């Protein structure tokens, strides 16, 4: 099974290929094949946590040469097909493979036409997401990153609501703008450093490569860092780059929303955690406060926006802005560390980073479930306005119970997954910068306000007579869709340690690298003699020396 990662990445694409042979008209067969195929992928991916060893190294690595000709062109290391998995990507991969069959099952009836095309798009999307999560080569990552974009664009644009074209175009243009920036950054970074390989580049940072830690290249580093941050921030989305999200969510069909919320947004934060933070420790320290401040604004702002919504889906979409603010805040917690003491720094960021990872997973589940639930209501009533509902708990008691449980997870009640993540992020951030954390904690209050307002308006109060028609309680299929999520919500809240201990070594490594860079920066600034930094170069193509003109 040494090619397990490639198998997992390309199984969905293979599924898409298989689906092309199934006649268009046999919709239920298509759906079954799609669902069971993705379920199979999930089962295959369960091999990963079983064989995963809790350390900070990349595992199940695969590397093949790919486009060597680029190497001969400019003497840089060649882009290679390099896949690998560590504690950071492990659970995101599992989340992806877990949520895709659920999205398909939940959208069984929702997608009524062009079922075949839809399933193919979903499967290609899954390949893109898994590839982006597993790629350790920048060019490969970029390729998968773009592969994700097209199917999502089609899903919103073809199966979406009334303003689908506007939303799809907005989504596409936003993300593409980010991608272009990222591509430029990748080209510049890789050709300067001399490798396209992330793992190698990380080693170089650890060994004190002057491009990353030296006093030169500050301007170049800053541009690359911000290009990365900007492109990932659009995907997250970070305030004020978030406006594509509500539109995309509102217009996207339920499964599209689910995937978008559960996985696609996480790829933004994953990118930050994987690339932007480990590679640019000095920039994280220097400019981290900007990103963290935007994240805190996003937390409060997203919550207030949710409070102002009348459309359920839009409300949930804005709540994502708020929740992902926590994630970004946790990621940059160390960057805003103001204390002088060095020994709690590692603690700070390990806690905050674990919290961020945990919110990524928790938000994927709870918001995915919320979109599914809203979608189920929409299928029954064909409206998403809260004011069109009211008191439906009477007709749909089980549905209400499920919705309330998911709500509780979303507002971070202890005992659910939401609490662990939110708590750890705020705890870690507080150790670094108490005012930002205190401000961010207001989101805890507002979160309860907007979610309970939603529950109250939709489920409680007197039953509106004209709305009661057609509102049946959850069907067995819907229950089967939701039950795994509910189970995970509780399990991850009560027994988080199996998850945390697997992701912790990788996160601690990021934290320690960041911490070391603080000292490294001091050393580098003291030793400005050109010869002194020379020995630090651990470079695959050592002949690419930093040009002094770059100052």
């Amino acid at each position, binding site marked *: 099974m040494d090619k397990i990662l490639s198998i997992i990445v390309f199984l969905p694409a293979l599924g898409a290929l298989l689906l092309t042979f199934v006649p268009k008209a046999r919709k239920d067969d298509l759906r079954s094949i799609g669902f069971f195929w993705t379920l199979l992928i999930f089962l295959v991916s369960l091999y990963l946590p079983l064989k995963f060893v809790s350390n900070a190294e990349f595992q199940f690595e695969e590397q093949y040469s790919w486009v060597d000709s680029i190497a001969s062109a400019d003497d840089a290391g060649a882009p290679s097909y390099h896949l690998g998995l560590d504690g950071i990507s492990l659970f995101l991969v599992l989340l992806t493979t877990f949520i895709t069959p659920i999205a398909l099952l939940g959208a069984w009836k929702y997608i009524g036409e062009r079922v075949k095309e839809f399933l193919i798009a979903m499967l290609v999307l899954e390949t893109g997401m898994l590839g982006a999560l597993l790629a350790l080569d920048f060019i490969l990552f970029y390729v998968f990153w773009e592969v994700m974009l097209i199917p999502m664009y089609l899903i919103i644009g073809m199966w979406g609501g009334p303003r689908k074209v506007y939303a799809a175009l907005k989504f596409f243009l936003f993300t593409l703008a980010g991608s272009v920036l990222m591509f430029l950054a990748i080209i510049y970074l890789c050709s300067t450093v001399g490798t396209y390989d992330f793992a190698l580049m990380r080693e170089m940072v650890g060994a004190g490569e002057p491009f990353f830690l030296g006093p030169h290249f500050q301007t170049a580093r800053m541009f690359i860092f911000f290009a990365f941050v900007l492109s990932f921030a659009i995907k997250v989305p970070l305030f004020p780059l978030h*406006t594509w999200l509500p539109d995309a969510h509102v217009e996207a069909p339920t499964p599209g929303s689910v995937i978008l919320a559960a996985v696609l947004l996480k790829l933004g934060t994953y990118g930050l955690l994987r690339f932007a933070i480990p590679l640019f420790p000095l920039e994280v320290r220097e400019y981290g406060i900007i990103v963290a401040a935007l994240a805190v604004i996003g937390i409060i702002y997203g919550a207030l926006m949710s409070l102002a*919504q009348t459309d359920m889906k839009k409300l949930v979409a804005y709540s994502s802005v708020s929740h992902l603010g926590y994630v970004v805040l946790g990621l940059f917690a160390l960057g805003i560390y103001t204390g002088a003491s060095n020994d709690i720094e590692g603690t700070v960021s390990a806690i905050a980073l*674990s919290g961020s990872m945990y919110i990524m997973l928790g938000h994927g589940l709870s918001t995915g479930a919320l979109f599914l639930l809203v979608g189920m209501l929409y299928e029954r009533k064909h409206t998403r306005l809260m004011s069109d509902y009211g008191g439906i708990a009477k007709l749909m008691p089980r549905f209400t119970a499920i919705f309330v449980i998911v709500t509780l997870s979303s507002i971070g*009640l202890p005992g659910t997954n939401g609490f662990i993540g939110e708590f750890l992020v705020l705890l870690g951030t507080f150790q670094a910068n*108490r005012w930002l954390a205190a401000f961010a904690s207001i989101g805890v209050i507002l979160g309860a306000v907007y979610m*309970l307002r939603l529950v109250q308006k939709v489920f409680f109060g007197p039953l509106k007579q004209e709305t009661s028609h057609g509102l049946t309680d959850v069907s067995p299929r819907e229950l089967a869709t939701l039950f795994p999520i509910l189970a995970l919500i509780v399990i991850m809240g009560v027994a988080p340690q199996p998850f945390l201990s697997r992701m912790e070594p990788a996160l601690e490594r990021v*934290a320690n690298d960041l911490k070391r860079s603080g000292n490294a920066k001091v050393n580098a600034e003291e030793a400005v003699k050109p010869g002194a930094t020379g020995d630090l170069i651990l470079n695959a193509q050592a002949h690419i020396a930093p040009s002094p003109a770059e100052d």
Partner: protein
Amino acid sequence: MNHDLILLIPLIPLLGFAINGLGGKRFNVVGSGLIASVAVTISFVVSVKAFLHVRETGEVVSSVFEWFEVGGFEAHFGFRIDQLSAIMCLVVTGVGALIHVYSIGYMDRDKNPAKFFAFLNLFIFAMLCLVMGDNLILMFLGWEGVGLCSYLLIGFWYEENANADAGKKAFIVNRIGDFGFLLAIFLIFFHFGTVNFDEMKGAVDDELENDGYVAGAGEIVNEGRVRKTLFVDAEHEAGRETALKSIGAPSWTWQRHVGLGALTIVCLLLFVGATGKSAQIPLYVWLPDAMAGPTPVSALIHAATMVTAGVYMIARLHFLYDLAPIAQSVVLLVGAVTAVWAGFIGLTQFDIKKVLAYSTVSQLGFMFMAMGAGAYSAGIFHLVTHAFFKALLFLGSGAVIYACHHEQDMRRYGGLGKRLPMTYFTFIIGALALTGIAPFSGFFSKDEILWVSVNAHQFLGAENHIFGWTVWALGALAAVFTACYSWRMVSMTFHGSYRGEEHLPLSHVHEAPRTMRYVLMILAFGAATVGFIGIPPFIVGESGNMFNGFLDPMIHTAHHESALSPWFFMIVTLALGIVFAFVVGQNFVKPDNRITNLATTNDVVRRLTLWSRAKLYVDEFYNVVIVQPVMWGAWLLFAVVDQGLIDGILNGAAKGTELIARAMRPLQTGELNYYAMTIVAGVLVILAFIGLDDISAALGLASASSEIH
């Protein structure tokens, strides 16, 4: 005893929750009620066993399971039974079990009893987590858990908007408190590096010993020294102090006020949490609304157990409060003011449950007075007695409400004593205990609190002898209010003549079912006698006060000395209680009496009545100052900033692109030859720019051809 046995205490109710929650409508009221009651009763039995064990051996029973642990932060499912949590467990499971049994009768006409009992069991579970947790995080789990159950149970009859609104309000107001609690946890972890109670206490004790201080009442401790992890900051502070002194800066810039430090902030933040959960000023507003829930819920959650969580939390963390005199003063003052404030509102309410709700807020104020005065065991003692008599009163009012077919307005009661003799009898006992008439339980506990409050001789960290008297006066005033509203309620409900004939004929009013009556009897017995476990030491001697003696290893009760004899205070409060109870009780037998007449004739009294009845316009104030601005602000922000500004800029950019494109449209003629011509022209232009020479040079043409020729 096997330590893991104590896990049964919270887990059995959780099991009950699971059975009732999954069983759903398969159980009728008796079935689900029995499951739930038996679960809580088993918990009670185990609690008693654990209590006896702790009492005999003095040993702390604990059992720990892994929860999560990351980067030096640990939070585990660590349950412990010590003296304090043993008492709390007994109250929660004991009173809880009784209320469960009562609910079987009360909820017999409900459509969804299994859901109700499932929530009640879940509540008991969460409450037990709260009191048994050996760390702040597990306590927080319970803290939020009880809040959730409170939300679900207040809104249990969700079909009425008011009920669901009340539940939402309770949850959100509690969340504001939890915000403070959370920040306190962060700060505690920041300074102590742990959230475990024992470890925190150990850290505090270590520091105190190292610095040669001994903890004691009024001992001024430089709490900056308690910091374990942040000596760096302390040094930094010291350096700053020296620097500022040397340049002759004014003293307020460098002088560190004794007591105003990290611990004070921690304690104040924790108290913010407590004001939310325990309904103190300024966050008490949810509790009166919470009466929308079924009456057993009001008795269990909003009187006996959940609302005392804040008091328990301060008792649990008393070793921090001991070192933070400013926070103590704040707690004391807020408690006293709340006691008066809520008592004043309670004077004029007509809804019987509202009266009891404000009474609860007021009594919780008493408990916080004790906490603020550093007399933690007195506060816990009042908590225990209050659990009995307030649960009794609520259940009694529930019996009345049940008998009167869910009529809660006391103006439609009157003379019910003859129709409901058992309820009447037990209610009188509850009222006697609440008013604090000897020898009923409330007498001992309230008396002790008033007495210790006189001895509070520090205000905001400074010696202040008037403060104690002020607080005592406030407490005495609150006690007078208590007597007034209690006996007004008793008289309006049970005495005089029946006033609700046109709504419900008196002949339809029947005594509640047997289960409910028995529960009332048991609680009445408790309310009457439970005070004897805490007879003041000046009567029976140190050893005679069993309650303080039991708690002593956990919370040491300091000796209080005062200028006047404790007998003086005892007799004054007792006399005040009896006189006001008698006068008000006599008057309110009839709807128009001297007191109500006074409210129409005397302008001052009329105005006071108006304000009291309008609940001092606090809800309206919050609505105008907080709720509406937030909602409107959110709308405005959405419309102006999000849709207008941010999206406007982006859509503007898109529009601009479109305009440029529109301007360039005529270039696209659709003629093939024209396009081809343009291409050629383009090529020519490029060629002209680069120059043909350059092209040939770039292609290596020149060198290649020169070699041939």
